[in-house]
C-alpha cells in the first residue's frame, strides 16, 4: 500500500510535466490541425535555458524562491521566442497547403533544433546539482516510508497554478475567445475582424512557454539533460494529448497524468525496461475503443 502511494506521488509529478508539454501539442493541433513535431525540442530548449540560468543565478547567491521565479520567467521568455520563430519560419508559409507539408516541415525543424543544440552546447549529458532537498515523510512506522519531496510539491503546485491561469486565459479573456473561434472556423473569425495570424502566433508563444516550464521542472527533477530529451518526452506528451482527446485542453492534462501514472506504475510493478512500451500499448488499446481519445469530440464526417 505504501509502495502504491509512493508510485502514485511519483506518477502525478511526472504526469504534470507531460501534461504541460501536451497542452502545447493539443493547442496547436486544435487551431491549425498539424502535429507540431518540433514541440518536444522546444521543451528541450526550455530545459537548456533553465539550466543555463540556474548556473548563472546559482553563482550570485540569491535566495532560492527568487531564483526559481527569475529562472521561470527567463525560460518562458526565451523559449517563447523559439516557438514564435519556428512558427514564422516553418509553418506560416505553409498555411493552407496540403496536410503533410507542415508535418514534414516540422520534422525538419525538429532535426534542426536538436542538432543546433548539440553543436552549440555539446553532446554530453549536463548534470546539475540538486537545488531542493528534503521532503515530507509519511507512514514512518511502516516498513516502507513514503517520501514526498519538496520538489514534487513544488512541481505539482506550480502546474496547478499555471493550469488555473491558463484556463482563465482560454475561457474568460478576449484572447481565449479569439483562439477558440479560430479553432472552429478560421475564415469566419477573420471576417469578424480578428487577426488570425496573431492569434496563431500567440498560441505558439503560450504553448512554448508552458513547455519551457516543463523543461525547467525536468531539469530540477532529473538533474541531467541532454540535447535528445525532447524526442521521447515529446512523443509521450503527444501520446498524452491523443489519449485525452486531441484538441481538448482538459484532455491534455488528463492524458498527461495518465501517461505519467501508467509509466511509473509499469516501471514499479512490471518492468523498468518496458515502461515506454506500456505507454504506447495503452495508447493503441485506448484508440481502438475511444477513436478520438477520452475527452475528444467525436468527429462527424461530412460528405
Amino acid at each position: 500500500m505504501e509502495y502504491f502511494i509512493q508510485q502514485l506521488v511519483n506518477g502525478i509529478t511526472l504526469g504534470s510535466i507531460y501534461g504541460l508539454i501536451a497542452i502545447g501539442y493539443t493547442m496547436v493541433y486544435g487551431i491549425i490541425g498539424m502535429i507540431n513535431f518540433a514541440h518536444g525540442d522546444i521543451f528541450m530548449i526550455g530545459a537548456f535555458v533553465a539550466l543555463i540560468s540556474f548556473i548563472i543565478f546559482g553563482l550570485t547567491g540569491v535566495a532560492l524562491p527568487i531564483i526559481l521565479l527569475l529562472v521561470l520567467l527567463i525560460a518562458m521568455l526565451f523559449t517563447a521566442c523559439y516557438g514564435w520563430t519556428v512558427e514564422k519560419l516553418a509553418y506560416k508559409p505553409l498555411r493552407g497547403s496540403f496536410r503533410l507539408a507542415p508535418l514534414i516541415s516540422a520534422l525538419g525543424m525538429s532535426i534542426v533544433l536538436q542538432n543546433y543544440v548539440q553543436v552549440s552546447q555539446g553532446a554530453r549529458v549536463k548534470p546539475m546539482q540538486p537545488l531542493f532537498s528534503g521532503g515530507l515523510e509519511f507512514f514512518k512506522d511502516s516498513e516502507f516510508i513514503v517520501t514526498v519531496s519538496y520538489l514534487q510539491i513544488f512541481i505539482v503546485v506550480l502546474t496547478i497554478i499555471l493550469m488555473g491561469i491558463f484556463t482563465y486565459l482560454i475561457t474568460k479573456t478576449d484572447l481565449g475567445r479569439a483562439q477558440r473561434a479560430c479553432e472552429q472556423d478560421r475564415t469566419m473569425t477573420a471576417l469578424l475582424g480578428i487577426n488570425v495570424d496573431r492569434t496563431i502566433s500567440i498560441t505558439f508563444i503560450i504553448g512554448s512557454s508552458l513547455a519551457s516550464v516543463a523543461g525547467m521542472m525536468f531539469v530540477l527533477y532529473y538533474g541531467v539533460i541532454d540535447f535528445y530529451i525532447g524526442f521521447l518526452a515529446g512523443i509521450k506528451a503527444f501520446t498524452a494529448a491523443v489519449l485525452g482527446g486531441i484538441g481538448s485542453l482538459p484532455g491534455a492534462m488528463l492524458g498527461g497524468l495518465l501517461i505519467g501514472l501508467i509509466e511509473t506504475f509499469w516501471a514499479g510493478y512490471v518492468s523498468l525496461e518496458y515502461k515506454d512500451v506500456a505507454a504506447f500499448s495503452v495508447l493503441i488499446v485506448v484508440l481502438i475503443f475511444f477513436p478520438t481519445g477520452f475527452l475528444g469530440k467525436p468527429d462527424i464526417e461530412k460528405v
Partner: protein
Amino acid sequence: MEKKDIIQSFKDSLFTGLIALALFGPIVGLRTVSKGEGLFITPQWGVVFFLVGLCILGRFLININSARRTELKIFSTLSSKFSSITEDKAKHFAITGILFAVIFPFLPFTDRYFMDVAIMILTYIMLGWGLNIVVGLAGLLDLGYVAFYAVGAYSYALIATTFGWSFWICLPLAGVFAAFFGILLGFPVLRLRGDYLAIVTLGFGEIIRIILINWYEVTNGPDGITGIPRPSFFGLPFKRSPDEGETSFHLFFNLEYSTMHRIIFLYYLILVLALITNYFTLKIRKLPVGRAWEALREDEIACKSLGVNPTNTKLTAFAIGAMFGGFAGSFFATRQAFISPESFTFIESAIIVAIVVLGGMGSQTGVVLASIFLIGITEMFRDLEQFRMIAFGGAMVLIMVFKPKGILANRKPTILMHGDKK
C-alpha cells in the same frame, strides 16, 4: 525605392536582430561545460554577434528584394524547370536514369566511396518506393516504417546466423515476416484516421526498437548481432581464400581478387531489388486493388458507398509496403554484416517519409530525386560532421516552404474513366 521603405526595412531588420539575439544569446552564447564536479559557463559572444549580424543582413537583403517586387530568381526558375517535367519526359528521364545506374560502377571516376554512397542512396530509394505504396498511393501516414525495416533486418540476421540458410532463402522469409508484422499492427489501428494513425505507427516503431534493445536472449540487446553472412554470387562466395571444396567468385571467373567485386555485386543487388519494387508498384497501380488505394486516398466515404472494404484495402497496402521494407532490411543486414537497434531509430522513419513527401507524394521519379538530393546534402557536409544534420533538416524545411507539393507533384489518379480532360 523610396526613403520610407528603406527606413522601414531597416527597422524590421533590427527587430530581426533582436529576435536573433534572444534566440542565439543563451543557447549559443553561454555554452555549458562540465569541469570536475559541476557545470560552468563558457561565453562565446563572438559567434553570437556573427550569427545576429548574419540574420540582420539577410533580413535586410530580403526586404529590399521584396520591396522591388522581384522574387528570388533561383527558386522560381528551379521550380518551373521541375514542373515542366511531364509524364512523357519523366519516362525518358527514368530510362536514362536506369541506364546510368547500370553502367555507374564501371565509370572511370567511380571509387569505393562513390559506390558506398550510391548503395546508400539506392537503399533509401527502395525504402521510399516501398513507403510510397502506403503514403503516396493509399494516403496512410506511416511514421514507423523503420519498424518493418528492422524486422526484415533482424529476421534475416537471426535466420542466417542460426540456421545458416543462404541469402536467397532468407530474403523472401524476411519479407514475409515484415508483412506479417504489418498486418499485426495494421489490423487494430487502420480504422484510425490520419494523424491518429501517424502517432500510433510512430509508437509501434518505438515499441519494436525497445523490444530489440531489451530482449537480450534473442536480439543480443544493444550490442546487436555480428557475423551476419555476406551474400554469395549464386553460391559463389566473395572470399580471397575459400574454404575446402568451395569455389569463390574470383577463382570461378578467373579474376584478380578485389573487395570491389562484393561491393559491385551488392550495388546490383539493391538496384535490382529497388527496380522490382518500382515495377511492382507501377503494375499494381493499374490493378483493382491499386485503384482502390488511390480511390481511398481521395475519398474514403465514396469508397465505402461503392462497396470497397477500407480496412482490408488499407491492410494490403500496409502489408505490401511492409514487405518491401523487410526486403530492404535484409539487404541492409547482409551489407553491414552487423546490425544493432541503433540503426533503426525514429530519425530513419522521418528520413523515409521526408523522401516520399519531398519527392511529391505518389511520384516514383520524385522519390529518386529526393533521395539523391537529401543523401547528397548530408554527404556534402560530411567534413563538417556536426552540421550535416542541421543542413538536412534545413533542406527539409526549405523544400516544403518553397515547393509544398514536393519536387514532382503527381497526384493524378492512374486511371480516369473518361481519359484526361485536359
